[in-house]
């Protein structure tokens, strides 16, 4: 029973059998979309496969891209520098040319949302990297800033809409130099509790997890649904 593995992989849109080294965590939203679709198919409810109801966008392929960037360490004294500086990088090469981007949502998980570790308020700065990172310079020259936000900590997952940025990266891959994330500690929420800056920053570095949820629509597979909707 020689299963035509290669033919089936091609049918799935893959050119060879993936051999991931470790399983990435699957976010709740992808599991929910998967189970909703499986349940609908099992009970015979037909759903538009080219519309992601749970996200309110058109699309039939959802990809969660892990951050492939790295932490940066400033040469200044800890008190004078941000708590955390990280270059975030997402590889968009998996998105095929014919696919149309309909959503790109950056997820910044700052750690579990628990009240046992009340932390200081944080100031979060996110900017585009517009020049290649030069190694002898500790941090990349930040380009256009598009998030400057104060957040109480713990905070759980923060989401930012990166659709226009991702479209630009997808159309001009050489522009994709990543994002520059800086997190500063903004004093303390409860003056009675003394926060050790260093271990606060160490905890933040350990818990930070960034990912980019990308939804695309493949017009070759989705023309029929638009006709149905018409």
């Amino acid at each position, binding site marked *: 029973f020689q299963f035509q593995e290669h033919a089936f992989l091609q049918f799935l849109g893959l050119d060879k059998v993936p051999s991931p080294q470790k399983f990435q965590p699957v976010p709740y939203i992808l599991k929910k979309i998967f189970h909703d679709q499986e349940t609908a198919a099992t009970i*015979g409810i037909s759903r538009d496969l080219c519309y992601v109801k749970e996200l309110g966008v058109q699309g039939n392929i959802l990809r969660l891209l892990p951050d492939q960037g790295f932490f940066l360490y400033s040469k200044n004294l800890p008190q004078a520098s941000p708590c955390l500086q990280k270059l975030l990088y997402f590889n968009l090469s998996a998105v095929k040319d014919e696919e149309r981007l309909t959503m790109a949502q950056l997820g910044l998980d700052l750690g579990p949302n628990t009240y046992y570790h009340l932390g200081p308020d944080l100031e979060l700065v996110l900017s585009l990297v517009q020049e290649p990172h030069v190694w002898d310079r500790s941090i990349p020259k930040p380009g256009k800033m598009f998030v400057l936000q104060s957040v109480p900590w713990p905070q759980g997952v923060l989401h930012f809409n990166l659709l226009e940025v991702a479209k630009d990266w997808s159309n001009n891959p050489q522009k994709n130099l990543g994002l520059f994330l800086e997190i500063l500690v903004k004093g303390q929420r409860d003056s009675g509790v003394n926060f050790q800056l260093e271990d606060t920053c160490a905890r933040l570095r350990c818990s930070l997890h960034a990912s980019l949820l990308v939804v695309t629509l493949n017009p070759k597979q989705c023309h029929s649904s638009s006709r149905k909707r018409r």
Partner: protein
Amino acid sequence: AAIPAPKVSCKNLCHRHQLFINFRDLGWHKWIIAPKGFMANYCHGDCPFSLTTSLNGSNYAFMQALMHAVDPAIPQAVCIPTKLSPISMLYQDNDDNVILRHYEDMVVDECGCG
């Protein structure tokens, strides 16, 4: 006089045959997160003239079976899927991306003569 209906055993008649492909048998459980496998059901069986009206058949199948009864050189109506459903696959690729894709009309739910 009614044409004596050929004694056709039920199991030869057109119906859905269930076939489950377990991804573990293919070693694909190492990269497919969900589901554990998928139903590769298929349609198979005869579409005799006497039963085309009951085998979930189309009008076309009835006419084709009628013509086959008159001239055996004309092929019989065939056993085909009449209801299909999609599957969703959650898997990981070589860049550690987690991908969720929907594939339309993948699973045969019902068969009939067409």
